[in-house]
């Protein structure tokens, strides 16, 4: 009885103090309208939506993984390394075992094994990171910095840094399926991941525990939570999600390589912060993160439609947006604090 009550209050408090979602929605609509007005024939077209839906799931899923780690007060800088390593393991397995020119029906079991193999590599990577953080008390930022080097290093080592290509055709054909000739499979996977992680965070005990631990780990421990197991499970989920992203990258590129998606780490942290995840832990929702993903995708696809704007301006805009959002949130919270103090004085 009491637990459900506290959980409900925590949830109530969280949604009440989330004006961030509304702000993100305004920003999303603004970017969308801006791009539509500036590039009317290119931006708001079916073809451009289709290509956007193909682009964001891979880093979107990794952003959700990083967001989970940040909610518990940590960070996971190893997502890209995990994604590439698990994709490479799957690719090596497929290239090594599937006989050349085998009929599709014969390839399917190999594909299932490859996917399971890749997911378990992701889970193992997450377990390693989670164990280092929760059992050995290494600060998350360093532990995952180390695992990022380690996983990327292993990926380079077992491939000699070369791309792994020559996957069975069926893999990329399944991976690039489009429902109704419009909705890519990767988008469906992203949708399922976002919804189920969202439900996990807002409707399950474990989700509430994650927020409680992220707000104040010591208080959480005294309240009887098993912090070690919460941290471990969080990074395991993040590792699992990274391997899903890795499988999507492998389908899109039709190969796997140790340094695919290198700039995604920064981008994912940016998305999480923009989406309202507090870098100190305890706050943020998947809804916010999803909107941040869409904002960034609209911005970058829109900018791509201007031929005279260099691709590198995207870095400038992302860095600039990240800092502006931080400053804006800070000023806002200062104003709120001041208002609260004034109210308490009256």
């Amino acid at each position, binding site marked *: 009885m009491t637990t459900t009550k506290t959980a409900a209050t925590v949830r109530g408090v969280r949604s009440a103090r989330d004006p961030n979602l509304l702000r993100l929605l305004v920003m999303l609509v603004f970017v969308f309208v801006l791009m539509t007005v500036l590039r009317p024939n290119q931006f708001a077209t079916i073809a451009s939506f289709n290509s956007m839906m193909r682009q964001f799931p891979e880093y979107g899923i990794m952003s959700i993984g990083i967001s989970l780690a940040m909610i518990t007060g940590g*960070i996971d800088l190893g997502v890209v390394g995990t994604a590439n390593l698990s994709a490479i393991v799957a690719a090596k397995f497929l290239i090594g075992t599937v006989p050349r020119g085998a009929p599709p029906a014969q390839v399917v079991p190999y594909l299932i094994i490859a996917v399971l193999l890749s997911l378990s590599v992701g889970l193992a990577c997450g377990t390693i990171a989670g164990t280092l953080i929760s059992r050995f008390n*290494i600060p998350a930022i360093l532990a995952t*910095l180390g*695992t990022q*080097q380690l996983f990327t290093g292993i990926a380079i080592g077992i491939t*000699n840094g070369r791309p792994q290509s020559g996957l069975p055709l069926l893999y990329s054909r399944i991976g690039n399926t489009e429902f109704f000739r419009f909705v890519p499979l990767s988008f469906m996977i992203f949708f399922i991941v976002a919804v189920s992680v969202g439900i996990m965070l807002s409707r399950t005990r474990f989700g509430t525990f994650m927020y409680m631990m992220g707000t104040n780990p010591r208080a959480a421990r005294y309240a009887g939570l098993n912090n070690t197991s919460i941290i471990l499970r969080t990074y395991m989920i993040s590792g699992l999600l990274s391997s899903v992203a890795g499988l999507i990258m492998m389908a899109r590129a039709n190969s796997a390589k140790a340094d695919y998606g290198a700039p995604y780490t920064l981008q994912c942290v940016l998305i999480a912060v923009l989406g309202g995840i507090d870098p100190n832990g305890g706050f943020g929702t998947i809804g916010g993160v999803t909107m941040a993903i869409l904002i960034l995708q609209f911005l970058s696809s829109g900018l791509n439609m201007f031929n005279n704007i260099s691709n590198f301006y995207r870095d400038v805009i*992302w860095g600039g947006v*990240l800092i502006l959002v931080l400053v804006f949130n800070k000023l806002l919270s200062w104003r709120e604090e001041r208002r609260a103090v004034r109210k308490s004085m009256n």
Partner: protein
Amino acid sequence: MISLGRISKRSEPYVLAAIILLSLLIQARSGQFFSGNNLVDLARSLIVPALFSVGCMMVIVSGGIDVSFPAIASLAMYVTDKILLASNYSGNVILAYAISAGLGLLMGALNGFLIGFLRLPTLVVTLGTSSLYTGLMFGAFSASASDVPPAIARHGKEILFTATNPTMGLTSNMPSQILILIAVLILAFLLLRYTMLGRGIYAIGGDETAAERAGFNVRGIKMFLYCFVGVLAGITGIARISMMTYADPSTMLGMEMTVIAAVVLGGTRVTGGMGSLTGTILGVALMTILSNSLILIGIPTYWTRVFTGAVIIIGTGVTAHQTIATRRRRAQSQKAAA
């Protein structure tokens, strides 16, 4: 009197032991480690990460973390390079260092303002400015590998001495930039040891609130710290391109991870308040040996990153374990006293 137990609680002896073991191993396997040219080569590749590590260590001691210094160094050196090339400058290299340091100061000041005055989280801020600066470099200046002005090229050819390896017939030159490293180390040592500012950096890292109540100007110290890192990065940028004798905008990008790893490996506590220059330099030396000399014992370069990752994890794990063990021992002795 220094007791053995006291020594074993610090990390420097462990890092030193690891360096000695590793060098003996490489020497035994290849016979090439203690040759003059290999040692000079190591010193040469140590200069840039060591220069970075001094600023990085001070930031971590203050309880923060900075990942933007390679971006600052790259943008500062690239703009300086372009300015000097465009103005056909042929004078002394000191001007190059001055311009680059000034640009670094400006970029560091932005970090300092956001972190010191707005109290924003250091990792996210520096990730953001890092992206901003590299984007500016490649976008606004459409940077690509370019020539260096004569002043920098001449500076790059200043050599202190040359070491030859009689068996292999290889020679290696000790670049004059090592003098800059020595000067920076002395300056940082004096700053951290003998000035109120330096003690303030440790105080903030130990407990920010306590430091503030004790009268330290926390904002001012943080502002100074990130400006100092910026200046240092600007200088490092010029040192790097003068040693390479061409300005490659991406040569330093991505170094932040190994530098942070080296600093932490050298015993700097990630949560702040503890760290020494000796440990930092030992950490950098270990990382440099790992990345330079593994090839001497037949480990392909592809595997270097696995070793870097493993060293980071083991090194930070040992440090974290020591902190907890000390805390537990202290709690026990307190209980015993009561």
